[in-house]
């Protein structure tokens, strides 16, 4: 069984390195956000050590930004954790959809794999696979290693050199991830069966965003789940 497993996925190392290489443009965007987060951390009187530890063990950028912003605004740690946690519920859907990648792996690979799962390397893995490339668990890990290294280094740098950090919006870098996700969507599109689920997701996000005071976190989860339910119920191939 063990031997079979190894021979069934020979290119673990080459997937790791291609995951690491392919994540570079996304990692550049992450670095800009890391600097901006470091600036915020410094304003919340966090030092380089705290910033580095936080980036390593939380490793979820948007929730770190919300939580530290809340802490700096004077809410207690409890409320700040809740705000960050709400933003991270999306990660539940991400690791759930990675079940085939984790399945049958030793526990340490599962724990490493779930910790290193983020929007960027997860989306990139799906995009590459949709284009016919071999991209599985080790591709995800390679991307995750690149992202965590860049995230920790840039956030610590931002916290340490707070006064010289550029503002992402002034450079147009706030648009980096919107553009990246548009490119990834292009790769994920694989035919007209996705039309209704995707239209459903867009409609839900637009309606919830325009007509209700719903928090964006919940809008995203509702949009993602709504489209997935449509795909589950409608498509039957």
């Amino acid at each position: 069984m063990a031997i079979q497993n190894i021979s069934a996925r020979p290119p673990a190392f080459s997937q790791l390195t291609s995951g690491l290489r392919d994540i570079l443009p996304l990692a550049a965007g992450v670095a800009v956000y890391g600097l901006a987060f470091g600036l915020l951390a410094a304003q919340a009187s966090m030092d380089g050590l705290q910033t580095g530890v936080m980036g390593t063990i939380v490793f979820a950028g948007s929730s770190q930004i919300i939580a530290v912003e809340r802490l700096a605004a004077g809410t207690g740690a409890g409320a700040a954790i809740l705000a960050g946690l709400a933003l991270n519920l999306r990660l539940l859907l991400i690791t759930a959809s990675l079940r085939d990648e984790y399945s049958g792996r030793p526990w340490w690979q599962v724990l490493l794999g779930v910790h290193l799962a983020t929007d960027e390397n997860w989306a990139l893995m799906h995009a590459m696979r949709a284009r016919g490339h071999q991209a599985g668990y080790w591709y995800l890990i390679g991307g995750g290693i690149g992202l965590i290294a860049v995230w920790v280094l840039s956030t610590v740098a931002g916290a340490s050199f707070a006064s010289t950090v550029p503002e992402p919006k002034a450079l147009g870098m706030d648009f980096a991830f919107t553009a990246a996700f548009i490119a990834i969507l292009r790769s994920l599109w694989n035919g007209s069966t996705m039309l209704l689920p995707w239209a459903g997701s867009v409609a839900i996000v637009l309606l919830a965003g325009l007509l209700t005071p719903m928090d964006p976190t919940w809008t995203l989860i509702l949009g993602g789940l709504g489209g997935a339910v449509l795909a589950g119920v409608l498509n039957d191939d």
Partner: protein
Amino acid sequence: MMTETWILILGLAAATFAVRLSGYLLGQRLPDHGPWARGLQALPGCLILSLVTYLLMRGGPQEWAAGTVALAVALATRSLPLTMAAGIAAIYLLRAYF
């Protein structure tokens, strides 16, 4: 403030890891064919599209125009770096000159 910060760091790390691990445990328990499997398979695209929709909705005409440029480059090249570069350049120019 010092201990408050460490409580936040450790608490958010534990909560985030619990969410990530719960997704794994949930995924293992869902059936691997039928509606559940189809839904789970469609989930990545739907979630990313929801995120893009939200990001563009939060922006204005400049973001919509830059999004259109990014989409055109994505359709033409299917390249992630080129799409990112085009989108960033477009939003930078639109904000500077319009």
